């Protein structure tokens, strides 16, 4: 059998051009597959980075309606809620519309307590908390725009009109790879004081409350408890786990994600057809050789090993190359996307899936030709001109 695998490898390199082109096709397909899957993963990264101990309370009607800050004290009363902070989506523009990154007005002290995965040195933390005009940014974000501590960051308001500027007091890094390092955070008080003067009807409001609960297992019960508190009030609330909240965003773009997933499988299906064609061509040319092997006394399993071995060697070899090539490709893409995706990395699941797809490509390409070769009558095979 070993001999036959060697024979399979030698058969593989008989048509160098054909083999190389097919291999190139598989490499490209696997790279495309891995990148598409990584885009999908990146979309879900927000939900991945969540904590089971955090709940998000928002306006029951829609996220675009705020909640009164006064709710904070009543929520804190609930037994089991061990921490509370709040944030507003700011949505400002940094120099140009294309420079997108998420900005939140937050209550610094409580917020950093609830998000221990944002790691900030003590000095930077104190500097940020002390300076009402201060802000902090994630490492990736600061790198992207070359910000240093002390820089003044101007933002043009869209939801909250006017020109805003903040002094960068700290650059946080994520405790884990999946932690979002693209956020821009500044004082909620800063926003609120300004609104009190310019647009009092929108002051004293928050976008969402972030709650810390004592045990992840109590999420449902405590969510209920919060929402019951504001039942039949002017602004009813909807509380859910941080994960559910983040998945809610993903759900809005579900159709796109499904489309991307379908495309990723279509790519694999196309290369399967290409590969099957290569194998069909090769085996047809070698009919007389296979017939000779049969005449000499080699049974079906040898021929199967020969054809399957050739097919799998090509598909798995190219698949591994493709996966290796996907890493630099993802790196280039990640640089291009900048802060659009907080995390853009090829996951181990994508690697596994890529390898599995490679095996499948080789397997499906070999099945039909092998069956043909095995069932083809020897005497007819010997007649074929090859």
């Amino acid at each position, binding site marked *: 059998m070993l*001999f036959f695998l060697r024979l399979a490898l030698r058969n593989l390199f*008989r048509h160098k051009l054909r083999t190389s082109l097919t291999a190139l096709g598989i490499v490209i397909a696997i790279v495309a597959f891995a990148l598409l899957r990584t885009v999908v993963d990146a979309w879900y990264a927000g939900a991945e980075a969540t904590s089971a101990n955090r709940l998000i309370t928002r306006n029951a009607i829609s996220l675009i309606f705020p909640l009164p800050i006064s709710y904070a004290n009543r929520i804190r009363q609930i037994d089991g809620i061990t921490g509370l902070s709040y944030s507003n989506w700011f949505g400002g523009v940094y120099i140009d519309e294309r420079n997108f990154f998420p900005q939140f007005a937050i209550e610094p002290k409580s917020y950093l307590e609830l998000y221990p995965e944002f790691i900030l040195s003590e000095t930077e933390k104190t500097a940020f908390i002390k300076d009402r005009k201060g802000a902090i940014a994630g490492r990736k974000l600061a790198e992207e725009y070359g910000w240093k501590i002390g820089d003044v960051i101007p933002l043009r308001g869209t939801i909250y009109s006017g020109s805003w500027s903040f002094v960068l007091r700290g650059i946080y890094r994520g405790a884990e790879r999946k932690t979002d390092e693209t956020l821009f955070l500044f004082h909620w008080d800063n926003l609120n004081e300004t609104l009190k003067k310019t647009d009092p009807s929108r002051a004293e409001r928050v976008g969402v409350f972030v709650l810390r609960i004592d045990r992840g297992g109590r999420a449902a019960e405590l969510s209920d408890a919060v929402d019951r508190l504001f039942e039949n009030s002017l602004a009813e609330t909807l509380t859910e786990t941080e994960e559910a909240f983040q998945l809610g965003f993903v759900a809005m773009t579900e159709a796109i994600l499904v489309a991307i997933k379908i495309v990723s499988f279509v790519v694999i299906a196309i290369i399967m057809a290409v590969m099957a064609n290569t194998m069909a061509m090769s085996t047809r040319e070698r009919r*007389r050789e296979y017939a000779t092997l049969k005449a000499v006394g080699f049974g079906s399993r040898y021929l199967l090993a020969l054809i399957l071995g050739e097919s799998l060697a090509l598909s798995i070899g190219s698949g591994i190359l493709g996966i290796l090539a996907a890493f630099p490709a993802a790196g280039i893409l990640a640089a291009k996307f900048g802060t659009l995706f907080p995390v853009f990395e090829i996951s181990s699941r994508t690697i596994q899936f890529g390898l599995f797809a490679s095996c499948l490509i080789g397997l499906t390409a070999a099945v039909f030709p092998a069956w043909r070769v095995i069932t083809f009558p020897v005497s007819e095979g010997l007649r074929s001109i090859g």
Partner: protein
Amino acid sequence: MSAKPKDLRAAGPVRYMNPIVEIENLTKHYWKGDQIVPVLADINLVIREGDFLALMGPSGSGKSTLLNLIAGLDRPTGGVLRVGGINIAELPESSLTDWRSEHVGFIFQFYNLMPVLTAFENVELPLLLTGLSKRERREHVELVLELVGLTDRMDHYPSQLSGGQQQRVAIARALVVDPALIVADEPTGDLDRVSAEEVLELMEHLNLNLGKTIIMVTHDQRAAAKAHAIRHLDKGVLTDDPSGTD
């Protein structure tokens, strides 16, 4: 029939007299759609151990078909086909395959060597089906390559060998498992006269000195002259008087 084979047979040992191939009322036809294509009709033939039989006849007369039947590559439509006492028509496919690997050596018009294997590896191929160790295989391969005079070419690929040399490699491959029966379908059909002569001498040697039974299909009178007996096929019918060869 020439006198030569009879003389040789008379001089040969008695053990060569057992029949190795027994064919009675053998018929073969193919189906083309729903139409029957008759190829062989009512063939009766006995080939004895140590025979060297040449099968001749016009193109399409069924020579290859008959040879393939005897070698267990194809199945008859009717009649009896015993080779070495076994009714091979009744063997299931996998047993037939195993049977071939042990009992029949094949020589083809176009040599049918694996182009990606060296002469040595091509000859080694049938031995992979035996339980022989690597060293034993090497010994066997070297022995038969020496017999066909290609020891110095064993690392060459078929494309690096002349037609005659390739056919000798093929003969070595047919010989390496030491089968009782060797079938050759136009073994000299693709060779020039000198190479053909070498190949024929080699086959004669296998027959005379190694006791191999050989059945050879050929169009070439010179080739047929090497055989002990010549049988003619015409439109699927053996035309000679059978008593001549028995």
